[in-house]
């Protein structure tokens, strides 16, 4: 049975498979729902996804509202937004979570605008807590925590009177729960109420490009910041990664400078990674970057500035010339007992 006041997750699909970010949000949403004592529901939109959404149950989803229509097989803004709005109006969740993907960041604002509700982008943490405004106390409200202002502050945002409160969260930020295959999700089919005129975007072609780097499953990541953004520095970073059997990461300024592909970007606007070892080479450690790597099991920071903020979250700090230190590490690794 579905109930009002649930926590709801918008399910994204990649080639008809439920996206990782959606499973992460179901896992996180389940925790919020348990705290509130409500159900965790999902809304899935697409074509022939009945089998694919079964996995949601394994992560704690109670009910998935499913809209099946061939015209919805590929994401476009207006039809998806209108469909989600209808589901929210009908089932009245108190919280709705979206992945902060190109899909979620496209559709969530449009949904929030139509429902006139609060939406907080790119949250790095979600909590249930209290908010006081003058004499009013809002209990059990969603606390949405995110870096703001270029990462120089961390803000806690609330939408106390908004029904629902909506938030987007980037892939990799929330942890995926261990799946429990004995748990099943209830699938509730919902009618698609769209007119052909709602399909304002014609999808001409979708080109999928294979990524040549897999940071998310890498055990070791050697990352370059502006302090290693010289041709020589970048070569050494790659060499160290190769030597250790790891992947190459980079900070946003390095990616923005165009010397390395965006697939390598670690941080708030890139990927969030949790490797066993993260070696930050010439990375100052702005919060946007730290948001993407602070949970690495071990962090080695290499920087010529002893006051670089990266040293505050590192387990090992080496102050000195980046190239010099990397050379020493390669040498030491090859010579190790």
């Amino acid at each position, binding site marked *: 049975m579905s109930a009002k006041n649930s926590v709801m997750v918008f399910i994204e699909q990649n080639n008809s498979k439920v996206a990782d970010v959606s499973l992460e949000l179901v896992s996180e949403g389940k925790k919020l729902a348990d705290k509130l004592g409500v159900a965790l529901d999902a809304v899935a939109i697409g074509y022939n996804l009945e089998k694919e959404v079964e996995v949601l149950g394994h992560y704690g989803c109670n009910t998935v509202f499913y809209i099946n229509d061939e015209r919805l097989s590929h994401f476009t803004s207006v039809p998806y937004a209108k469909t989600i709005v209808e589901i929210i109006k009908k089932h009245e969740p108190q919280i709705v979570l979206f992945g902060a993907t190109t899909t979620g960041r496209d559709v969530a*604002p*449009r949904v929030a605008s139509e429902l006139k509700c609060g939406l907080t982008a790119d949250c790095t943490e979600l909590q249930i807590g209290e908010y006081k405004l003058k004499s009013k106390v809002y209990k059990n409200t969603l606390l949405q925590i995110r870096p703001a202002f270029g990462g120089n502050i961390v803000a*806690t945002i609330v939408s106390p009177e908004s029904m629902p409160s909506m938030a987007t969260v980037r892939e990799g930020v929330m942890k995926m729960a261990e799946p429990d295959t004995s748990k099943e999700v209830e699938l509730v089919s919902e009618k698609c109420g769209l007119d052909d005129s709602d399909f304002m975007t014609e*999808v001409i072609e979708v080109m999928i490009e294979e990524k040549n780097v897999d940071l998310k499953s890498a055990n070791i990541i050697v990352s370059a910041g502006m302090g290693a953004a010289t041709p020589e520095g970048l070569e050494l970073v790659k060499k160290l990664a190769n030597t250790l059997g790891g992947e190459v990461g980079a900070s946003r300024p390095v990616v923005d400078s165009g010397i390395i592909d965006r697939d390598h970007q670690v941080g708030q606007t890139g990927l969030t990674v949790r490797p066993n*070892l993260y070696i930050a080479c010439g990375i100052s450690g702005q919060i946007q970057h730290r948001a993407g790597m602070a949970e690495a099991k071990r962090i080695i920071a290499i920087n010529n500035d002893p006051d670089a903020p990266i040293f505050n979250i590192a387990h090992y700090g080496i102050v000195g010339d980046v190239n010099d230190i990397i050379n020493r590490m390669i040498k*030491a690794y090859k010579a190790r007992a």
Partner: protein
Amino acid sequence: MSLQIIVMVKQVPDTHNVSGDAMKPDGTVNRAVLPAIFNPEDLNALEEAIKIKETIGGKITAITMGPPNAVKILKECLYRGVDDVVLVSDRKFAGADTLATSYALKCAIEKVEKYDLVLCGRQAIDGDTAQVGPQIAEKLNINQLTCVSEIVEVNETDITIKRSIENGHEFLKSNMPVLLTVTNEANEPRTPSAKLAVAYKNISGKTSDESYDDEYLESGIDDPISYIKEWNVESINADPQLCGLSGSPTKVKKVQSVVLTASDVKQIQNTDEGIAELINELTEEHIIG
């Protein structure tokens, strides 16, 4: 019938170059010490607008919402070839979140007679939300195409674009009117034209068209404007309740400046011995193989 293009621009504090004194002791941001700049991706949106005008013609109006000194970026728009500029400014807009902002901007856009294309930067560097563009589109009840990395084809009735997505890109087509959010992959924005910069150097804001300055007629530019339009809550027919703080469902509960907690970082000496010791320690702990 020529294309009517509206470009939404924003003046933002340069958050990518924040120095230590930008944070006040109470953890809030001291905007006064940060340089105000043209939001980078809005320049990409502006560049696309100018390219369209150069290829198939059209009229470009740039709109910004902000304090009076935001006229600075409107002048930057004029220096690059924009035809008309509007400053939407009112104390009643203060404290607006993305919903209240998009409502005010929607009212301003509707005051511009007609529009075929609304171009925005993907996101502004002060909030990084990327929400205002899609919210304006919803409020105008028009289609949206976000994360546009290339305009492939445009004519007076429809537009085809390339959109960057996580694992590739899509080619999408929409009829007009439509709102686009443009990324920094789209182009390298041009620098101001010296001729236009001279012509518009002394232009200033006016709330009504009381006088016309002949100086601009002699500047050698076709149909130059003589002043920067200034609109407020009343002139864009906005409901004050839906603007600013009162129109914003999101509230800031708490703001902390990012003060790092000192952890027990182990200092490794930058010597052959120091680094060899580290590598051996990590090997023993099976962190590296």
